[in-house]
């Protein structure tokens, strides 16, 4: 059995609202979540916009500090904001963002972009820096000629490969991937996904993979967690998740996915027609957050927020119906 690398316990992140009619209230972006990731695993964190999945990623990487709860990485507490974390954690957890166009400074060359993390962490090979950088580029299937290019002359896929190379440069044990392929075409997405899988094998990487695309998770996650309104609704190993989903929201999401073959239709067995929209994380409904859209909601769903239960090993569901 692999070791646990990341453990999130009771994590909360509230943002105060400083302007407008809702001044003084809080955006409850994450409202108490727990999960763990093991070495070499991919945890897929799925949800709609406003579910808190990206905030979770930003908390893990340290762009925000936690409001409450604890994030443990390799046994050490890293709940605080990145600037207060010891340098070696910044080396050990890396991040790839959604839009490769905005994560690469347009005024800096590929060489400068790749050199930065190495020189910060004192890992730059003084004798042959170029060779080291070229090795990095080659690891993500880019050739040496890219070294002196600027991001603007790269295609979307190439930029994302470069972002992966940067994340890889410090030899991390974990990479947080925030929708790394959602702004790319499927033909490019396929390339990136295969590369990520290969790199995971080679370096025994753990991925925290944020996405809204369940079909994608099916093909690369070890474990899938589904978030709704700042909370995890269901979390299970990938096989269980797709063959025996229990939470009505999971079933609703699955039945909303447009698919391209009859074999896939089988996985949409629930046929719950989606209705309504995700409520604002400022005015969270009383009781279960999903009660405004749940076709099976009963009285107690409007009174109490359900607790997470383990219905079979590794399969957790947070629903009154179970």
């Amino acid at each position, binding site marked *: 059995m692999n070791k646990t690398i990341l453990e999130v316990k009771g994590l909360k992140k509230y943002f105060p609202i400083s302007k407008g009619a809702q001044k003084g209230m809080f955006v409850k972006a994450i409202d108490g979540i727990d999960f763990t990731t093991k070495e070499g695993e991919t945890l897929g964190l799925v949800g709609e916009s406003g579910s808190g999945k990206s905030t979770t990623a930003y908390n893990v990487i340290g762009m925000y500090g936690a409001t409450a709860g604890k994030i443990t990485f390799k046994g050490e507490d890293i709940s605080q904001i990145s600037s207060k974390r010891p*340098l070696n954690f910044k080396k050990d957890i890396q991040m790839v963002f959604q839009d490769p166009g*905005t994560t690469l400074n347009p005024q800096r060359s590929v060489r400068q972009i790749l050199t930065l993390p190495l020189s910060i962490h004192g890992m730059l090979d003084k004798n042959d820096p170029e060779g080291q950088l070229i090795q990095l580029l080659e690891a993500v299937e880019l050739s040496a*000629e890219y070294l002196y290019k600027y991001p603007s002359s790269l295609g979307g896929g190439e930029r994302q490969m470069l972002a992966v190379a940067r994340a890889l440069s410090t030899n991390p044990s974990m990479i947080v991937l925030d929708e790394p392929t959602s702004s790319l075409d499927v033909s490019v997405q396929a390339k990136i996904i295969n590369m990520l899988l290969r790199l995971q094998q080679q370096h025994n990487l753990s991925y925290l993979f944020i996405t809204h695309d369940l079909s994608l998770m099916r093909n690369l996650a070890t474990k899938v967690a589904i978030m709704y309104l700042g909370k995890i609704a269901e979390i299970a190993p990938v096989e269980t998740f797709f063959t025996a989903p229990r939470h009505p929201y999971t079933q609703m999401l699955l039945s909303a996915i447009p698919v391209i073959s009859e074999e896939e239709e089988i996985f949409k067995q629930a046929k719950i027609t989606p209705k309504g929209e995700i409520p604002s994380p400022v005015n969270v409904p009383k009781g279960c957050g999903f009660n405004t859209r749940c076709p099976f909601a009963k009285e107690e769903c409007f009174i109490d927020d359900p607790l997470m239960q383990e219905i079979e090993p590794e399969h957790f569901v947070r629903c009154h119906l179970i």
Partner: protein
Amino acid sequence: MNNKQEKVVTKRDKYENIKQSWYKFSLNKMSVVGLVVVCLVAILGVFEPIIAPFPTHVGAYVNFKEASIPPNTTYWMGTDVFGRDIMSRIFYAFRGALTMGIGVLVVVVPLGGILGLIAGYWKGNWISTLIMRVTDVFLALPPLILALAVSAILRPTLLNSMMAICVSWWPWYTRLIYGMTTTLRNELYVKSAELLGASKGHILFREILPNCLGPLFTKMTLDMGWVILTGASLSFVGLGEQPPIPSLGTMVSDGAKFLPAQWWIAIFPALAIMVIVLGFNLMGDGIKDMLSSEE
């Protein structure tokens, strides 16, 4: 890997970049006209002693016999009431004008820019609030009035009028850079650098500042024109370079007394001001096109 080969690649890329930038710049013919005008003004100003037909006329030269002659083949722009060649004096005044523009920008751009960077990056912090409130106060007056007020208090010299313009000009750069920095600091590439643990210096000057340079250069080019114009306005009311040293503003205001009969005394220096400002304006537009990513 062969080091030399790499360097060649860089150089070629840079050369390509320059070529493309020039192409974009020259796409609008007016920008090229602007550039030519600016270069011409600079050459005439710098080499005035060689180029000007009557280099001695720039000082306290008096020749009443030749006074107030309309433009002719000897004096292309005529002579003033002291019999001095107006063209030579305009060439010399270009010097003062360019000195003024460059001198002011050299002070206000780094000063205003760094304040803007600091205020923008630490927005929400007291230091940022302080800087921006002070900036607001300076911006509450039209630059010309503030410059007039300051230079009226000081002794009228070129240096003092430059100082006065600096006082009224820096906040515009603070505001420009502040505005850009507040957006840029939230860019993911800045966040990425922060997450990697890069130093504040690196983030301010390597990640944020290079992305401000486009609008900054555009504003600087345009401002060369405006600063010169403001300087001319100051010397127009006598708060700049003192006679007998020629400056465009003084020449216009002196000449205005002899309108309309001796129109050339005021009109040519006035045209000279317009030409300089126009040159920098056209060039600024070209630079804006050049740095815009649109194709």
